[in-house]
């Protein structure tokens, strides 16, 4: 339980460490479940930018959360 809480805190820190533009796209996709079109409309950016920011955020998270991803 403690380990799970610690992991959650690490995840939170990793997400908060992302640049605001990439973080916004990631949060809207992963936690709000919006489609790329909805994210693009909400933030006023092209769909291509949504995709590239999402790729960037996920790559950063995969690096910073690598130890936890190996356990899954």
């Amino acid at each position: 339980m403690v380990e799970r809480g610690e992991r959650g805190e690490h995840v939170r820190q990793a997400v908060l460490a992302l640049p605001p533009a990439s973080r916004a796209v990631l949060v809207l996709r992963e936690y709000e479940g919006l489609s790329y079109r909805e994210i693009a409309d909400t933030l006023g950016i092209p769909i291509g930018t949504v995709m590239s920011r999402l790729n960037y955020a996920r790559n950063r998270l995969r690096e910073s959360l690598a130890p936890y991803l190996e356990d899954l």
Partner: protein
Amino acid sequence: MTEHVTTWLGAYHDGELRGLRLRQVEAHLAQCATCRADLERLQALAALLQESPAAENLTPPERFVAQVGLRLPRRPERPAWQRALEIGWQLAPLGLLGAWVFVQAVFTMAGAVLVALRMGLGGELVAGLLPASQQGPSLSEIFSLSGASLGDVGRIVLQLLSSGGPLGWGVTLNLVSLVVIGLLYWSWLASWWARRQHRQLRVQQETG
């Protein structure tokens, strides 16, 4: 094996790919262990993010923006003629460039004809430039009826292009057309700048 599909894996994972791209990614995944492993890592990351209780207190501003944004009415789709007009406006500099190239080509050709006329090639050259259907009797007949030869036509054209002020009609017309094209381009540039300023101001007002 086809090229890795790393760039599209995220969109594939999110169910955002359609048509040919979707089939390409699926076909590649069927034969590429590296990309399949990449996809599994993406799925693992999504699972980790979902199970994390941190989701509850993450970045309220983004949630707020999403909730407000989705409740606002969508900007209406513009009619096709407006979009066509917009594309035409964006392509205006290309049109002006084309006009400039056309003007230069015309005056270069005219210059070449002038030189030929000065060298005395005259009417034969003019006749040679015309299509076969318009050559021969009809042209000769016209000029013989008016009492002039093709050589006279050449002299008339030469005089016309050489007259018209100190520079001659050819150079004057060339300069005028260049000035007009230049003015049109600067007008377009000014209008582009004004639209850009207007858009920036509107964004500032909306976000401000």
